[in-house]
């Protein structure tokens, strides 16, 4: 959500809420005050099963097996609890959420709970009758990932034959049924030159929105960084193209862009602040402050099988670990931006520096920053390495071995 969101002084757009919520009681100290603000968004990873094997998948490297997945009733209970505690939107994701045969019941429970429902799908196995049924049950919005606008590129990146043709068919059904469509465009060195064609495609399909989502290098994408990271110059020129297109396509297409923070000067306020506006639930019911949080070994996560969602939000160790600013070290602790970016991404600090309390190395004030940028530029300058595809075989092989931490600057 990078665009200017203020509308004429009368309408604000919020990513993270600052309104205390009835029934969610905090106390005077800072972290308790933060818990008193219910999250507005919930990402429900219904399953890690997926027909695609994209090498930048946002799922953890260690994939959850089907036998541990929450039951239908457990997911329906999550939706009811989410509505009661003031959550407004639910993003039904995966893996591939349509791999769950009970998606119908889960969507109905979410809609009945008053949640705005987003289906985030690869769309390769979705039938028209099922989509119509989901709409009837209360599905509000469909987001379809498009791996590339070139069919051969799309097949290679997702390791799935004729994926693009199938996705476009489903995209047409979505707009024919009068539902809003988002095209999700994961961007990296193999398709960054196609950003203009992605925008044209979205307009042609009648999409309401497109996400130009530069790969974020955690989990699978971190393993595949040398296969994926574009050059600094390609990145800058694609960002400039999108900024200009935004003006040209005003009122026609909403363009959201997630930029690759390796080439940034300031870190992203990850999740709008840890434990501030979002919750993520894994297929097995673990409740995480962000989808990559399991990469921080010191954290313990409560599950919806053991505790109420609201209690987890307010009291769980994982949510309170990096809430607010008390946990910070220098240079974050005394930084004027500490409540703007919250020190950036904890998982990236973990991946690169092996200490989740360090400043996100995407920040130019981090002693690791110049090493990280140097590494990224060196990888981008070399030919792309082979993909480590996201599948259970590779997950088992890779395990948690994530290489050595970078050495900070003196």
């Amino acid at each position: 959500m990078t665009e200017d969101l203020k509308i004429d002084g009368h309408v604000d757009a919020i990513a993270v809420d600052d309104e205390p919520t009835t029934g969610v009681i905090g106390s005077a100290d800072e972290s308790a005050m933060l818990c008193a603000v219910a999250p507005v968004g919930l990402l429900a990873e219904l399953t890690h099963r997926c027909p695609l094997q994209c090498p930048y998948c946002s799922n953890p490297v260690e994939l959850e097996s089907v036998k541990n997945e929450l039951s239908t009733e457990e997911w329906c209970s999550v939706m009811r609890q989410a509505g009661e505690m003031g959550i407004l939107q639910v993003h039904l994701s995966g893996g591939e959420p349509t791999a769950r045969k009970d998606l119908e019941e889960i969507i109905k429970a979410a809609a009945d709970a008053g949640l705005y429902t987003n289906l985030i799908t690869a769309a390769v196995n979705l039938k028209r009758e099922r989509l119509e049924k989901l709409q009837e049950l209360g599905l509000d919005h469909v987001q379809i990932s498009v791996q590339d606008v070139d069919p051969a590129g799309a097949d290679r990146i997702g390791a799935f034959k004729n994926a693009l043709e199938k996705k476009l068919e489903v995209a047409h059904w979505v707009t024919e049924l009068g539902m809003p469509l988002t095209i999700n465009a994961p961007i990296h060195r193999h398709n960054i030159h196609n950003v203009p064609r992605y925008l044209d495609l979205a307009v042609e399909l009648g999409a309401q929105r497109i996400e130009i989502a530069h790969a974020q290098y955690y989990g699978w994408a971190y393993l595949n960084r040398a296969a994926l990271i574009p050059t600094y110059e390609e990145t800058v020129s694609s960002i400039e193209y999108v900024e200009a297109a935004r003006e040209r396509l005003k009122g026609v297409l909403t363009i959201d862009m997630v930029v690759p923070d390796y080439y940034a000067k300031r870190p992203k306020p990850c999740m709008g602040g840890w434990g501030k506006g979002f919750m993520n639930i894994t297929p097995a019911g673990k409740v995480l402050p962000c989808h990559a949080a399991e990469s921080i070994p010191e954290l313990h996560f409560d599950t919806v099988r053991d505790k109420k969602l609201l209690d987890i939000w307010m009291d769980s160790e994982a949510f309170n670990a990096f809430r607010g600013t008390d946990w910070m070290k220098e240079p974050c602790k005394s930084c004027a931006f500490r409540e703007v970016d919250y020190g950036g991404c904890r998982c990236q600090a973990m991946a690169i520096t092996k200490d989740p309390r360090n400043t996100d190395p995407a920040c130019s004030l981090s002693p690791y920053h110049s090493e990280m940028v140097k590494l990224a530029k060196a990888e981008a300058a070399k030919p792309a390495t082979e993909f480590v595809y996201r599948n259970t075989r590779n997950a088992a092989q890779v395990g948690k071995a994530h290489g050595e931490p970078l050495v900070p600057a003196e």
Partner: protein
Amino acid sequence: MADVKQPGRLVVDRATKPVMPRYLKLRHDPGRDRWVLLAPERILTPDNIAVSVLKLCNGESTVDDIAAKLAEEYSAPVDVITADVVELLQDMADKGYIKG
């Protein structure tokens, strides 16, 4: 730039019959006692004036009709209200929340 006609972009004027796409949901949020407009990956918090305008965007009333109603309701000069409504709706249209 505001009056440059672009393909697909709605330019709001007094004769426009604004409508909210049906996939947007204007709901009262009881936990926080306020109105929210729920949209794909967006949560908007319209104030009372914006809510009054949005509730009148039914695809049949023109901007003039809407402004006349609000001028009466708020006992305010209709030309001031009209200008405000046009500005609000143009801004909403440019973000994809209002169609004509």
